[in-house]
């Protein structure tokens, strides 16, 4: 029992992202309102971002910006990889955040167009209107 608890305590970041992902996934499938589905998509994206960012962390390491003098070519300066957190997930998520804002804009634009035609954002009402035609 104690072993499982210590295993969970060492990996609680994964549990946090799984919880967020489940909330977003549920909203995307089960919610009837399209704007709530879009909010669920945003929560899902946040979960993925949290997962990547937490995988970048190293215990005791600082932000991935080197301390330096002027110019370049500090050959004598020793840079230890353990002192800086992994920059790669930060790079990937930096672009992912901006792209998620852009996809949110496109999703809202689609929702506005659907509202213009059907005068509702409730999924079941839209499906009924489509069946009638």
């Amino acid at each position, binding site marked *: 029992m104690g072993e499982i608890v210590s295993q969970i305590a060492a990996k609680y970041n994964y549990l946090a992202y799984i919880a967020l992902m489940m909330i977003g996934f549920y909203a995307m499938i089960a919610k009837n309102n399209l704007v709530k589905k879009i909010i669920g998509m945003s929560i899902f994206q946040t979960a993925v971002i949290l997962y990547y960012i937490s995988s970048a962390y190293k215990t005791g390491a600082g932000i991935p*910006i080197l301390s330096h003098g002027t110019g370049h070519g500090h050959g004598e300066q020793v840079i230890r990889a353990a002192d800086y957190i992994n920059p790669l997930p930060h790079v990937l998520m930096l672009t992912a955040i901006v792209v998620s804002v852009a996809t949110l804009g496109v999703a809202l634009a689609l929702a506005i167009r659907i509202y213009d035609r059907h005068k509702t954002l409730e999924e079941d009402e839209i499906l009924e209107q489509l069946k009638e035609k």
Partner: protein
Amino acid sequence: MSPKFIKPLAAGLVFLAGSVLAYASLEFPDWGDGNSPAATHVSPHYIQKSLEETSVPNIVTAVLADYRGFDTMFETTVVFAAGLACLLLLRVFRTKPPATRYFRHLPTGTVVEVRGNGLKRMPRDDFAPIDSDWVPDDLINRTACRIMIPFIQLFGLYVIAHGHHSPGGGFQGGVILGAALILLALSRDLRFTKTRLRESSTGLMSALGVFIYAGVGAFCLLSGFNFLDYGGLAGILMVDPVTARSLGILFVEIGVGLAVMATMVLIYNNVASGGRMEEGL
């Protein structure tokens, strides 16, 4: 399927997916493990060599714009394409003129309602057109935003220009600049924002940003280097190849910032006005 079953089915699916992921995460490295697979392959090379190879102390910026330059170029293209998709989905070019127009008499604050299509604008200068859903003339908001917006824009430019040495870069600075213009639109209205940044300018600037990025890459190609290998800029900038990489990163970051800023404003304007570009916050 009846909608009654959708919610329990969705809950079941979500718990199944969550428990599979939780089971898989038992095999994952611990939080903060310095020897995890993600931290051992290319990551130490980036940390140890990026200052030597690109002369950029912010490793995130160096990886973003140099080592992974292709990825970032296409991310910028995705942002541009999203703005284009918003424009094509929402923009309505032929609209019926509204049956009723509203004007505010500026010295007294009286609102005048004009019915019919005859009067497009009031004959005197002290009348200003306002939205039909009546935005109140809020002096406090207007003044506070007028004071704040220049500083927000200055900070956005700093974040773009200083992205090599401190947290920042084109994406972040572009979003800050876009947010400043959206704040302007929130504190005044869409009509006023369009006098500051025209609709055609937002479209042109988002395309120009992508063009600057791809153009820098193509210029490197012309001087005999690989696409987006900024060492090729050394000849024209008259610096050594390592400094040329640092400057090349700055050029593409400016392109990214321009594209992101213009696209944010484009998306906001279209979504806020429903594509009619006449009224809206």
